Protein backbone atom coordinates (compact mmCIF):
# COMPACT_ATOMS: atom_id res chain seq x y z
CA UNK A 1 0.00 0.00 0.00
CA UNK A 2 1.36 3.42 -0.95
CA UNK A 3 2.38 5.35 2.16
CA UNK A 4 0.64 8.61 3.14
CA UNK A 5 2.16 11.76 1.70
CA UNK A 6 3.77 12.95 4.92
CA UNK A 7 5.62 9.65 5.27
CA UNK A 8 6.42 9.65 1.56
CA UNK A 9 7.99 13.06 2.01
CA UNK A 10 10.23 11.74 4.81
CA UNK A 11 11.28 8.82 2.62
CA UNK A 12 11.99 11.20 -0.23
CA UNK A 13 14.06 13.37 2.12
CA UNK A 14 16.11 10.37 3.27
CA UNK A 15 16.81 9.26 -0.30
CA UNK A 16 17.79 12.80 -1.31
CA UNK A 17 20.11 13.06 1.70
CA UNK A 18 21.60 9.69 0.79
CA UNK A 19 22.66 10.89 -2.66
CA UNK A 20 23.80 14.30 -1.46
CA UNK A 21 26.02 12.89 1.31
CA UNK A 22 27.74 10.59 -1.17
CA UNK A 23 28.16 13.40 -3.71
CA UNK A 24 29.61 15.71 -1.05
CA UNK A 25 32.06 13.04 0.16
CA UNK A 26 30.34 12.95 3.55
CA UNK A 27 30.79 9.20 3.66
CA UNK A 28 30.84 8.90 7.45
CA UNK A 29 27.56 10.83 7.67
CA UNK A 30 26.18 8.58 4.92
CA UNK A 31 26.88 5.50 7.06
CA UNK A 32 24.75 7.03 9.81
CA UNK A 33 21.72 6.95 7.52
CA UNK A 34 21.73 3.20 8.15
CA UNK A 35 20.11 1.53 11.15
CA UNK A 36 22.40 -0.16 13.69
CA UNK A 37 21.29 -3.54 12.38
CA UNK A 38 21.68 -3.13 8.64
CA UNK A 39 22.76 -4.68 5.37
CA UNK A 40 24.05 -2.92 2.25
CA UNK A 41 24.66 -4.80 -0.93
CA UNK A 42 25.52 -3.96 -4.52
CA UNK A 43 24.54 -6.73 -6.93
CA UNK A 44 24.67 -6.93 -10.69
CA UNK A 45 21.49 -7.39 -12.69
CA UNK A 46 23.23 -10.38 -14.29
CA UNK A 47 23.61 -12.24 -10.99
CA UNK A 48 20.20 -11.17 -9.71
CA UNK A 49 18.46 -12.51 -12.83
CA UNK A 50 20.23 -15.87 -12.52
CA UNK A 51 19.58 -16.15 -8.78
CA UNK A 52 23.31 -16.12 -8.15
CA UNK A 53 24.19 -14.84 -4.68
CA UNK A 54 27.48 -13.05 -5.41
CA UNK A 55 27.60 -9.29 -4.77
CA UNK A 56 30.00 -6.62 -5.92
CA UNK A 57 30.01 -5.18 -2.42
CA UNK A 58 28.44 -6.71 0.68
CA UNK A 59 28.26 -5.20 4.15
CA UNK A 60 25.94 -7.30 6.28
CA UNK A 61 26.39 -5.24 9.42
CA UNK A 62 27.11 -1.62 10.20
CA UNK A 63 30.70 -2.26 11.27
CA UNK A 64 31.49 -3.65 7.81
CA UNK A 65 30.00 -0.51 6.33
CA UNK A 66 32.16 1.63 8.61
CA UNK A 67 35.21 -0.47 7.71
CA UNK A 68 34.54 0.06 4.00
CA UNK A 69 34.53 3.82 4.43
CA UNK A 70 37.50 3.71 6.80
CA UNK A 71 39.44 1.68 4.26
CA UNK A 72 38.62 4.18 1.50
CA UNK A 73 39.94 6.94 3.71
CA UNK A 74 43.05 5.19 5.02
CA UNK A 75 44.13 2.47 2.65
CA UNK A 76 42.62 2.31 -0.82
CA UNK A 77 43.82 4.15 -3.88
CA UNK A 78 41.22 4.87 -6.53
CA UNK A 79 40.44 7.24 -9.35
CA UNK A 80 40.16 10.81 -8.11
CA UNK A 81 36.61 11.74 -8.93
CA UNK A 82 33.44 13.45 -7.88
CA UNK A 83 30.08 11.66 -7.88
CA UNK A 84 26.74 13.02 -9.00
CA UNK A 85 23.69 10.93 -8.11
CA UNK A 86 20.55 11.64 -10.07
CA UNK A 87 17.84 9.72 -8.27
CA UNK A 88 14.44 9.22 -9.86
CA UNK A 89 11.00 9.27 -8.32
CA UNK A 90 10.69 7.33 -5.11
CA UNK A 91 7.93 4.80 -4.66
CA UNK A 92 7.24 3.91 -1.02
CA UNK A 93 4.89 1.22 0.21
CA UNK A 94 4.13 -0.41 3.53
CA UNK A 95 2.19 -3.49 4.56
CA UNK A 96 0.98 -3.28 8.17
CA UNK A 97 3.86 -3.13 10.65
CA UNK A 98 6.43 -4.28 8.09
CA UNK A 99 9.37 -2.01 7.21
CA UNK A 100 8.64 0.66 4.63
CA UNK A 101 9.75 -0.51 1.22
CA UNK A 102 11.08 2.07 -1.19
CA UNK A 103 12.43 1.84 -4.70
CA UNK A 104 13.99 4.42 -6.96
CA UNK A 105 15.99 4.33 -10.18
CA UNK A 106 19.34 6.09 -10.04
CA UNK A 107 22.00 7.33 -12.41
CA UNK A 108 25.45 7.93 -11.06
CA UNK A 109 27.82 10.13 -13.02
CA UNK A 110 31.50 10.42 -12.21
CA UNK A 111 33.62 13.43 -13.13
CA UNK A 112 37.37 13.56 -13.01
CA UNK A 113 39.51 16.52 -12.00
CA UNK A 114 39.45 18.00 -15.50
CA UNK A 115 35.68 17.88 -15.60
CA UNK A 116 35.36 14.88 -17.88
CA UNK A 117 32.08 13.25 -16.91
CA UNK A 118 30.92 9.74 -17.63
CA UNK A 119 27.91 7.66 -16.74
CA UNK A 120 29.38 5.38 -14.11
CA UNK A 121 26.37 3.35 -13.10
CA UNK A 122 22.66 3.06 -13.68
CA UNK A 123 20.26 0.85 -11.79
CA UNK A 124 17.78 0.73 -8.97
CA UNK A 125 17.71 1.09 -5.22
CA UNK A 126 15.61 -1.31 -3.20
CA UNK A 127 15.28 -0.13 0.37
CA UNK A 128 13.76 -1.38 3.60
CA UNK A 129 13.38 1.56 5.98
CA UNK A 130 12.60 1.66 9.68
CA UNK A 131 11.43 4.52 11.87
CA UNK A 132 13.84 5.06 14.76
CA UNK A 133 14.20 7.71 17.47
CA UNK A 134 16.67 9.43 15.12
CA UNK A 135 14.25 9.36 12.19
CA UNK A 136 13.97 7.06 9.18
CA UNK A 137 16.94 4.77 8.73
CA UNK A 138 17.95 2.19 6.13
CA UNK A 139 17.70 -1.33 7.46
CA UNK A 140 18.42 -3.09 4.23
CA UNK A 141 19.49 -1.82 0.85
CA UNK A 142 20.13 -3.62 -2.37
CA UNK A 143 21.60 -1.62 -5.21
CA UNK A 144 20.85 -3.53 -8.39
CA UNK A 145 23.32 -2.28 -11.00
CA UNK A 146 22.41 -2.60 -14.66
CA UNK A 147 25.93 -1.37 -15.41
CA UNK A 148 27.36 -4.73 -14.49
CA UNK A 149 30.66 -4.13 -16.25
CA UNK A 150 32.09 -1.77 -13.65
CA UNK A 151 34.02 1.00 -15.42
CA UNK A 152 37.58 1.10 -14.03
CA UNK A 153 36.74 0.24 -10.41
CA UNK A 154 34.12 0.60 -7.71
CA UNK A 155 35.35 2.43 -4.62
CA UNK A 156 32.82 4.95 -3.33
CA UNK A 157 29.39 3.42 -2.65
CA UNK A 158 26.64 3.76 -5.23
Amino acid at each position, binding site marked *: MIVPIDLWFRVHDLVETYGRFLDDDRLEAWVELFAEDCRYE*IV*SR*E*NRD*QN*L*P*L*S*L*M*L*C*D*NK*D*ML*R*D*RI*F*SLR*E*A*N*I*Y*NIHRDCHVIGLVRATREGAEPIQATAAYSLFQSNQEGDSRLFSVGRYELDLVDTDDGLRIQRQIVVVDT*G*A*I*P*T*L*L*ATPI
Partner: protein
Amino acid sequence: MTATLRGHDQATYTFPEADCSRIPYGLYRDAEIYALEQRLIFRGPVWNVLALEAEIPQPGDFRVVAVGDTPVIVNRAKDGSVHAMVNRCAHRGSTVQRALHGNCKVHTCCYHQWSFDLTGKLVGVPFQKGLNGAGGLPPDFDKAEHGLETVRVAILNGVIFGTFSEETEPLEAYLGPLFTHQIQRLFHKPIRVLGYQRQRIFGNWKLYTDNLRDPNHGGLLHMFQITFGIARLSGTGGAKMDADGKHNLSWAAQGGRSEAEAETPAGAGYGDTGRGDMKIKLRDPSMLRYFKEFPDDLTLAISSLFPGGALQQIGNTLAVRQIRTRSADEFDIVSTFFGYEDDDEALARHRLRKANLAGPAGLVSMEDGEAVELVHRAIVRDGDRHSVVEFGGRGPIKDQENLISDVPMRGFWLHYCKLMGVTPGAPQ
Protein backbone atom coordinates in the same frame (compact mmCIF):
# COMPACT_ATOMS: atom_id res chain seq x y z
CA MET B 1 51.69 4.08 -42.26
CA THR B 2 53.13 2.52 -45.39
CA ALA B 3 55.74 0.23 -43.87
CA THR B 4 54.73 -3.37 -43.30
CA LEU B 5 53.70 -4.18 -39.79
CA ARG B 6 56.74 -6.33 -39.16
CA GLY B 7 59.04 -3.66 -40.52
CA HIS B 8 57.26 -1.04 -38.50
CA ASP B 9 57.23 -3.22 -35.43
CA GLN B 10 60.92 -3.98 -35.50
CA ALA B 11 62.02 -0.50 -36.44
CA THR B 12 59.96 1.29 -33.82
CA TYR B 13 59.63 -0.92 -30.81
CA THR B 14 62.69 -2.65 -29.50
CA PHE B 15 63.54 -5.00 -26.68
CA PRO B 16 67.11 -3.86 -26.02
CA GLU B 17 67.66 -6.56 -23.40
CA ALA B 18 67.47 -10.28 -24.16
CA ASP B 19 65.92 -10.89 -20.72
CA CYS B 20 62.96 -8.56 -21.40
CA SER B 21 63.98 -6.27 -18.57
CA ARG B 22 62.98 -3.42 -20.88
CA ILE B 23 59.51 -3.41 -22.45
CA PRO B 24 58.66 -0.88 -25.16
CA TYR B 25 55.63 1.30 -24.36
CA GLY B 26 54.43 1.12 -27.95
CA LEU B 27 53.40 -2.51 -27.60
CA TYR B 28 50.71 -1.39 -25.17
CA ARG B 29 49.25 1.30 -27.41
CA ASP B 30 49.55 0.25 -31.04
CA ALA B 31 46.34 -0.90 -32.74
CA GLU B 32 48.31 -2.89 -35.33
CA ILE B 33 50.16 -4.77 -32.62
CA TYR B 34 46.79 -5.46 -31.03
CA ALA B 35 45.48 -6.96 -34.29
CA LEU B 36 48.62 -9.08 -34.60
CA GLU B 37 48.15 -10.34 -31.04
CA GLN B 38 44.67 -11.58 -31.85
CA ARG B 39 46.16 -13.78 -34.56
CA LEU B 40 49.49 -14.81 -33.04
CA ILE B 41 48.68 -14.88 -29.34
CA PHE B 42 44.97 -15.50 -28.68
CA ARG B 43 44.53 -17.64 -31.80
CA GLY B 44 48.07 -18.93 -31.60
CA PRO B 45 49.42 -22.09 -29.93
CA VAL B 46 47.81 -21.36 -26.56
CA TRP B 47 44.99 -22.76 -24.43
CA ASN B 48 42.53 -20.01 -23.50
CA VAL B 49 40.33 -20.38 -20.41
CA LEU B 50 36.76 -20.48 -21.78
CA ALA B 51 34.32 -21.49 -19.06
CA LEU B 52 33.55 -24.06 -16.38
CA GLU B 53 31.64 -27.26 -16.97
CA ALA B 54 29.49 -26.37 -13.98
CA GLU B 55 28.13 -23.42 -15.97
CA ILE B 56 26.74 -25.72 -18.65
CA PRO B 57 25.70 -28.86 -16.77
CA GLN B 58 22.83 -29.99 -19.08
CA PRO B 59 22.81 -30.90 -22.77
CA GLY B 60 21.90 -27.76 -24.70
CA ASP B 61 23.29 -25.40 -22.03
CA PHE B 62 25.44 -22.68 -23.52
CA ARG B 63 27.34 -19.55 -22.58
CA VAL B 64 28.83 -16.93 -24.85
CA VAL B 65 32.41 -16.03 -23.91
CA ALA B 66 35.35 -14.59 -25.82
CA VAL B 67 38.84 -15.51 -26.90
CA GLY B 68 40.67 -12.20 -27.07
CA ASP B 69 37.94 -10.20 -28.77
CA THR B 70 36.39 -13.09 -30.73
CA PRO B 71 32.95 -14.08 -29.40
CA VAL B 72 32.76 -17.82 -28.78
CA ILE B 73 29.85 -20.10 -27.87
CA VAL B 74 30.63 -22.85 -25.37
CA ASN B 75 27.94 -25.49 -25.09
CA ARG B 76 27.17 -29.04 -24.14
CA ALA B 77 25.93 -31.32 -26.90
CA LYS B 78 23.27 -34.05 -26.63
CA ASP B 79 25.87 -36.71 -25.85
CA GLY B 80 27.25 -34.60 -22.99
CA SER B 81 30.41 -33.53 -24.82
CA VAL B 82 31.54 -29.89 -24.66
CA HIS B 83 32.03 -27.87 -27.85
CA ALA B 84 33.13 -24.34 -28.63
CA MET B 85 32.66 -22.36 -31.81
CA VAL B 86 32.94 -18.84 -33.06
CA ASN B 87 29.62 -17.03 -32.61
CA ARG B 88 29.43 -15.84 -36.20
CA CYS B 89 27.07 -17.13 -38.84
CA ALA B 90 28.76 -18.87 -41.76
CA HIS B 91 26.30 -17.12 -44.06
CA ARG B 92 26.69 -13.36 -43.64
CA GLY B 93 28.73 -13.04 -40.49
CA SER B 94 25.93 -12.17 -38.12
CA THR B 95 26.01 -12.94 -34.41
CA VAL B 96 24.23 -16.29 -34.19
CA GLN B 97 23.53 -16.70 -30.50
CA ARG B 98 22.27 -13.39 -29.12
CA ALA B 99 21.66 -14.57 -25.57
CA LEU B 100 24.57 -14.58 -23.15
CA HIS B 101 23.52 -17.92 -21.72
CA GLY B 102 20.65 -20.36 -21.94
CA ASN B 103 19.61 -23.75 -23.25
CA CYS B 104 18.77 -24.63 -26.84
CA LYS B 105 18.62 -27.52 -29.28
CA VAL B 106 20.21 -25.56 -32.12
CA HIS B 107 21.72 -22.08 -32.43
CA THR B 108 19.62 -20.17 -34.94
CA CYS B 109 20.75 -16.97 -36.57
CA CYS B 110 17.83 -14.53 -36.52
CA TYR B 111 18.90 -12.82 -39.75
CA HIS B 112 18.07 -15.61 -42.26
CA GLN B 113 17.27 -18.44 -39.82
CA TRP B 114 20.30 -20.60 -40.56
CA SER B 115 20.62 -23.04 -37.71
CA PHE B 116 23.63 -24.85 -36.31
CA ASP B 117 23.66 -27.87 -34.04
CA LEU B 118 25.54 -28.06 -30.76
CA THR B 119 28.72 -29.19 -32.51
CA GLY B 120 28.60 -26.22 -34.89
CA LYS B 121 27.32 -28.10 -37.97
CA LEU B 122 24.94 -26.25 -40.28
CA VAL B 123 21.69 -28.20 -40.08
CA GLY B 124 19.02 -25.85 -41.36
CA VAL B 125 18.79 -23.35 -44.22
CA PRO B 126 15.24 -22.10 -44.93
CA PHE B 127 14.35 -22.06 -48.62
CA GLN B 128 17.59 -23.80 -49.53
CA LYS B 129 15.89 -25.15 -52.66
CA GLY B 130 13.83 -22.00 -53.19
CA LEU B 131 10.07 -22.05 -53.64
CA ASN B 132 8.30 -23.78 -56.53
CA GLY B 133 11.60 -24.16 -58.34
CA ALA B 134 12.52 -20.50 -58.08
CA GLY B 135 15.25 -18.90 -55.98
CA GLY B 136 17.24 -20.70 -53.32
CA LEU B 137 20.84 -21.80 -53.15
CA PRO B 138 22.71 -23.45 -56.05
CA PRO B 139 22.17 -27.24 -56.19
CA ASP B 140 25.81 -27.93 -55.33
CA PHE B 141 25.67 -25.93 -52.07
CA ASP B 142 27.13 -28.23 -49.41
CA LYS B 143 25.97 -27.58 -45.87
CA ALA B 144 28.95 -29.52 -44.53
CA GLU B 145 31.21 -26.71 -45.74
CA HIS B 146 29.34 -23.95 -43.93
CA GLY B 147 29.40 -24.82 -40.27
CA LEU B 148 30.46 -22.48 -37.50
CA GLU B 149 34.20 -22.19 -37.09
CA THR B 150 35.04 -24.62 -34.31
CA VAL B 151 37.45 -24.08 -31.45
CA ARG B 152 39.26 -27.15 -30.18
CA VAL B 153 38.39 -27.87 -26.57
CA ALA B 154 40.23 -29.56 -23.71
CA ILE B 155 38.96 -29.96 -20.16
CA LEU B 156 40.84 -30.40 -16.90
CA ASN B 157 38.82 -31.01 -13.74
CA GLY B 158 35.85 -29.15 -15.19
CA VAL B 159 37.80 -26.13 -16.45
CA ILE B 160 37.18 -25.75 -20.18
CA PHE B 161 40.00 -24.47 -22.37
CA GLY B 162 39.93 -23.69 -26.08
CA THR B 163 42.47 -23.23 -28.83
CA PHE B 164 42.24 -22.06 -32.45
CA SER B 165 45.56 -23.60 -33.41
CA GLU B 166 46.21 -27.13 -34.62
CA GLU B 167 49.76 -26.74 -33.32
CA THR B 168 48.86 -26.34 -29.66
CA GLU B 169 50.38 -29.06 -27.51
CA PRO B 170 48.15 -31.16 -25.21
CA LEU B 171 46.63 -29.12 -22.38
CA GLU B 172 48.57 -30.68 -19.51
CA ALA B 173 51.84 -30.23 -21.36
CA TYR B 174 50.91 -26.60 -22.02
CA LEU B 175 50.11 -26.03 -18.34
CA GLY B 176 53.05 -28.01 -17.01
CA PRO B 177 52.90 -30.00 -13.76
CA LEU B 178 52.65 -26.96 -11.45
CA PHE B 179 49.62 -25.39 -13.10
CA THR B 180 47.98 -28.74 -13.80
CA HIS B 181 48.24 -29.24 -10.06
CA GLN B 182 46.87 -25.77 -9.30
CA ILE B 183 43.75 -26.56 -11.33
CA GLN B 184 43.38 -29.98 -9.73
CA ARG B 185 43.81 -28.31 -6.34
CA LEU B 186 41.06 -25.71 -6.82
CA PHE B 187 38.75 -28.09 -8.65
CA HIS B 188 39.24 -31.16 -6.51
CA LYS B 189 35.49 -31.65 -5.95
CA PRO B 190 32.24 -30.48 -7.55
CA ILE B 191 31.84 -26.73 -7.55
CA ARG B 192 28.87 -24.39 -7.45
CA VAL B 193 28.99 -21.11 -9.36
CA LEU B 194 28.27 -18.19 -7.00
CA GLY B 195 28.13 -15.45 -9.61
CA TYR B 196 29.97 -13.17 -11.96
CA GLN B 197 31.82 -9.91 -11.70
CA ARG B 198 32.81 -7.80 -14.67
CA GLN B 199 35.19 -4.91 -14.80
CA ARG B 200 35.98 -2.74 -17.82
CA ILE B 201 39.42 -1.18 -17.72
CA PHE B 202 40.47 1.54 -20.11
CA GLY B 203 43.99 0.36 -20.74
CA ASN B 204 45.90 -2.33 -22.60
CA TRP B 205 45.27 -5.92 -21.54
CA LYS B 206 48.98 -6.62 -21.07
CA LEU B 207 49.20 -4.01 -18.35
CA TYR B 208 46.91 -6.32 -16.43
CA THR B 209 48.84 -9.51 -17.22
CA ASP B 210 51.93 -7.58 -16.07
CA ASN B 211 50.11 -6.61 -12.90
CA LEU B 212 49.26 -10.26 -12.21
CA ARG B 213 52.95 -11.13 -12.52
CA ASP B 214 54.28 -8.36 -10.30
CA PRO B 215 54.06 -9.46 -6.66
CA ASN B 216 56.11 -6.39 -5.73
CA HIS B 217 53.15 -4.03 -6.15
CA GLY B 218 50.99 -6.06 -3.78
CA GLY B 219 52.26 -4.52 -0.57
CA LEU B 220 52.82 -1.07 -2.06
CA LEU B 221 49.74 -0.26 -4.11
CA HIS B 222 47.19 -2.44 -2.31
CA MET B 223 47.37 -1.04 1.18
CA PHE B 224 44.30 -2.62 2.74
CA GLN B 225 46.17 -5.58 4.15
CA ILE B 226 49.16 -3.51 5.18
CA THR B 227 47.13 -0.73 6.78
CA PHE B 228 45.08 -3.15 8.79
CA GLY B 229 48.02 -5.33 9.73
CA ILE B 230 46.92 -8.41 7.83
CA ALA B 231 49.90 -9.00 5.55
CA ARG B 232 52.91 -7.28 4.15
CA LEU B 233 55.58 -7.71 1.54
CA SER B 234 57.98 -9.15 4.06
CA GLY B 235 55.57 -12.04 4.64
CA THR B 236 56.08 -15.58 3.39
CA GLY B 237 55.38 -15.80 -0.29
CA GLY B 238 56.81 -15.87 -3.74
CA ALA B 239 56.29 -16.69 -7.36
CA LYS B 240 56.61 -19.93 -9.28
CA MET B 241 56.52 -20.40 -13.01
CA ASP B 242 56.31 -23.16 -15.60
CA ALA B 243 59.36 -24.13 -17.66
CA ASP B 244 58.70 -21.34 -20.22
CA GLY B 245 57.97 -18.73 -17.55
CA LYS B 246 54.70 -17.92 -19.34
CA HIS B 247 52.38 -18.88 -16.47
CA ASN B 248 52.89 -17.56 -12.97
CA LEU B 249 51.73 -18.59 -9.52
CA SER B 250 51.87 -15.77 -6.99
CA TRP B 251 51.51 -17.30 -3.58
CA ALA B 252 51.51 -16.47 0.10
CA ALA B 253 51.35 -18.94 2.93
CA GLN B 254 49.63 -19.21 6.25
CA GLY B 255 51.34 -20.09 9.47
CA GLY B 256 52.12 -16.65 10.80
CA ARG B 257 55.25 -14.83 9.78
CA SER B 258 58.59 -16.08 8.70
CA GLU B 259 61.61 -15.78 10.97
CA ALA B 260 63.06 -13.03 8.83
CA GLU B 261 59.85 -11.14 9.16
CA ALA B 262 59.64 -11.57 12.92
CA GLU B 263 62.95 -9.72 13.14
CA THR B 264 61.76 -6.95 10.84
CA PRO B 265 59.98 -4.07 12.53
CA ALA B 266 56.58 -3.06 11.16
CA GLY B 267 56.94 -0.52 8.40
CA ALA B 268 60.55 -1.45 7.65
CA GLY B 269 61.50 -0.98 4.03
CA TYR B 270 58.79 1.55 3.32
CA GLY B 271 61.21 4.46 3.81
CA ASP B 272 59.48 7.79 4.30
CA THR B 273 56.43 6.88 2.20
CA GLY B 274 54.32 7.03 5.36
CA ARG B 275 52.99 3.59 4.55
CA GLY B 276 53.51 0.35 6.34
CA ASP B 277 51.96 1.51 9.60
CA MET B 278 49.97 -1.40 10.97
CA LYS B 279 48.30 0.12 14.00
CA ILE B 280 44.80 0.57 12.62
CA LYS B 281 42.24 -2.15 13.23
CA LEU B 282 39.05 -3.15 11.48
CA ARG B 283 35.84 -3.08 13.47
CA ASP B 284 34.70 -6.34 11.93
CA PRO B 285 37.65 -8.45 10.79
CA SER B 286 35.55 -11.64 10.59
CA MET B 287 35.57 -11.77 6.80
CA LEU B 288 39.37 -11.99 6.87
CA ARG B 289 39.39 -15.35 8.61
CA TYR B 290 40.71 -18.24 6.61
CA PHE B 291 39.12 -21.63 6.98
CA LYS B 292 41.77 -24.06 5.85
CA GLU B 293 40.40 -26.15 3.01
CA PHE B 294 43.43 -27.31 1.04
CA PRO B 295 46.15 -29.75 2.13
CA ASP B 296 48.84 -27.08 1.72
CA ASP B 297 49.33 -23.83 3.63
CA LEU B 298 48.66 -21.43 0.77
CA THR B 299 46.26 -18.64 1.71
CA LEU B 300 46.82 -16.72 -1.50
CA ALA B 301 47.34 -18.49 -4.80
CA ILE B 302 46.84 -16.64 -8.05
CA SER B 303 47.72 -18.67 -11.12
CA SER B 304 48.02 -16.48 -14.19
CA LEU B 305 47.72 -18.64 -17.26
CA PHE B 306 49.10 -17.38 -20.55
CA PRO B 307 47.66 -15.50 -22.25
CA GLY B 308 44.60 -14.14 -20.44
CA GLY B 309 43.35 -16.59 -17.84
CA ALA B 310 43.72 -16.63 -14.09
CA LEU B 311 42.67 -18.79 -11.17
CA GLN B 312 42.24 -17.05 -7.90
CA GLN B 313 42.31 -18.20 -4.30
CA ILE B 314 42.25 -15.28 -1.90
CA GLY B 315 41.67 -17.06 1.38
CA ASN B 316 38.34 -18.79 0.85
CA THR B 317 37.38 -16.66 -2.13
CA LEU B 318 37.74 -18.70 -5.28
CA ALA B 319 37.31 -17.54 -8.85
CA VAL B 320 38.37 -17.96 -12.44
CA ARG B 321 39.19 -14.80 -14.34
CA GLN B 322 39.20 -14.27 -18.07
CA ILE B 323 40.62 -11.25 -19.85
CA ARG B 324 38.47 -10.29 -22.83
CA THR B 325 40.20 -7.72 -24.98
CA ARG B 326 38.19 -5.01 -26.74
CA SER B 327 40.92 -2.92 -28.37
CA ALA B 328 44.49 -1.87 -27.66
CA ASP B 329 42.98 0.57 -25.18
CA GLU B 330 40.27 -1.43 -23.44
CA PHE B 331 39.61 -4.84 -21.92
CA ASP B 332 37.19 -6.58 -19.58
CA ILE B 333 37.99 -8.84 -16.69
CA VAL B 334 35.21 -11.39 -16.29
CA SER B 335 35.39 -13.34 -13.04
CA THR B 336 33.37 -16.42 -12.22
CA PHE B 337 33.27 -16.94 -8.46
CA PHE B 338 32.60 -20.36 -7.08
CA GLY B 339 32.37 -22.47 -3.97
CA TYR B 340 31.86 -26.20 -3.57
CA GLU B 341 28.63 -28.14 -3.77
CA ASP B 342 29.18 -29.46 -0.26
CA ASP B 343 29.81 -26.06 1.36
CA ASP B 344 27.72 -25.70 4.49
CA GLU B 345 25.73 -22.53 5.05
CA ALA B 346 28.43 -20.87 7.15
CA LEU B 347 31.16 -21.46 4.59
CA ALA B 348 28.91 -20.40 1.70
CA ARG B 349 28.17 -17.15 3.56
CA HIS B 350 31.83 -16.65 4.39
CA ARG B 351 32.83 -16.95 0.74
CA LEU B 352 30.28 -14.32 -0.24
CA ARG B 353 31.44 -11.92 2.48
CA LYS B 354 35.08 -12.50 1.73
CA ALA B 355 34.42 -11.72 -1.95
CA ASN B 356 34.59 -8.10 -0.71
CA LEU B 357 38.35 -8.46 -1.02
CA ALA B 358 38.38 -9.24 -4.75
CA GLY B 359 37.05 -7.86 -8.00
CA PRO B 360 36.33 -4.30 -9.16
CA ALA B 361 35.28 -3.22 -5.66
CA GLY B 362 37.78 -5.47 -3.91
CA LEU B 363 39.38 -4.03 -0.81
CA VAL B 364 42.68 -5.59 -1.88
CA SER B 365 42.25 -5.35 -5.64
CA MET B 366 40.38 -2.20 -6.66
CA GLU B 367 43.65 -0.30 -7.14
CA ASP B 368 44.62 -2.43 -10.15
CA GLY B 369 42.04 -0.70 -12.36
CA GLU B 370 43.49 2.66 -11.45
CA ALA B 371 47.12 1.54 -11.85
CA VAL B 372 46.53 0.11 -15.34
CA GLU B 373 44.81 3.31 -16.48
CA LEU B 374 47.53 5.52 -14.96
CA VAL B 375 50.17 3.73 -17.02
CA HIS B 376 48.08 3.53 -20.19
CA ARG B 377 47.39 7.27 -20.10
CA ALA B 378 51.00 8.27 -19.55
CA ILE B 379 52.53 6.10 -22.30
CA VAL B 380 50.38 7.53 -25.10
CA ARG B 381 53.56 8.85 -26.79
CA ASP B 382 57.15 7.66 -26.91
CA GLY B 383 56.39 4.09 -27.91
CA ASP B 384 60.12 3.51 -28.37
CA ARG B 385 60.82 4.11 -24.68
CA HIS B 386 60.74 1.39 -22.08
CA SER B 387 59.34 0.06 -18.84
CA VAL B 388 62.02 -1.08 -16.38
CA VAL B 389 61.62 -4.60 -15.01
CA GLU B 390 64.51 -5.38 -12.66
CA PHE B 391 63.04 -6.27 -9.27
CA GLY B 392 64.32 -9.71 -8.43
CA GLY B 393 67.30 -9.26 -10.73
CA ARG B 394 68.15 -9.50 -14.43
CA GLY B 395 69.05 -12.46 -16.58
CA PRO B 396 67.47 -15.90 -16.61
CA ILE B 397 63.95 -16.38 -15.28
CA LYS B 398 63.71 -18.30 -12.05
CA ASP B 399 61.22 -18.91 -9.28
CA GLN B 400 61.15 -16.26 -6.55
CA GLU B 401 61.09 -17.08 -2.86
CA ASN B 402 60.01 -13.57 -1.90
CA LEU B 403 57.41 -11.07 -3.01
CA ILE B 404 59.72 -8.18 -3.85
CA SER B 405 60.05 -9.23 -7.44
CA ASP B 406 58.61 -8.73 -10.90
CA VAL B 407 60.60 -11.49 -12.61
CA PRO B 408 57.42 -13.33 -13.74
CA MET B 409 56.58 -10.32 -15.93
CA ARG B 410 59.70 -11.04 -17.91
CA GLY B 411 58.61 -14.66 -18.25
CA PHE B 412 55.36 -13.53 -19.85
CA TRP B 413 57.16 -11.19 -22.24
CA LEU B 414 59.74 -13.76 -23.31
CA HIS B 415 56.94 -16.08 -24.37
CA TYR B 416 55.00 -13.22 -25.94
CA CYS B 417 58.05 -12.30 -28.03
CA LYS B 418 58.44 -15.91 -29.11
CA LEU B 419 54.86 -16.08 -30.38
CA MET B 420 55.05 -12.63 -31.99
CA GLY B 421 58.26 -13.52 -33.82
CA VAL B 422 60.44 -10.99 -32.02
CA THR B 423 63.91 -11.76 -30.67
CA PRO B 424 64.55 -9.67 -27.56
CA GLY B 425 68.01 -8.17 -27.39
CA ALA B 426 68.66 -8.69 -31.12
CA PRO B 427 70.52 -5.84 -32.81
CA GLN B 428 68.24 -3.72 -35.01
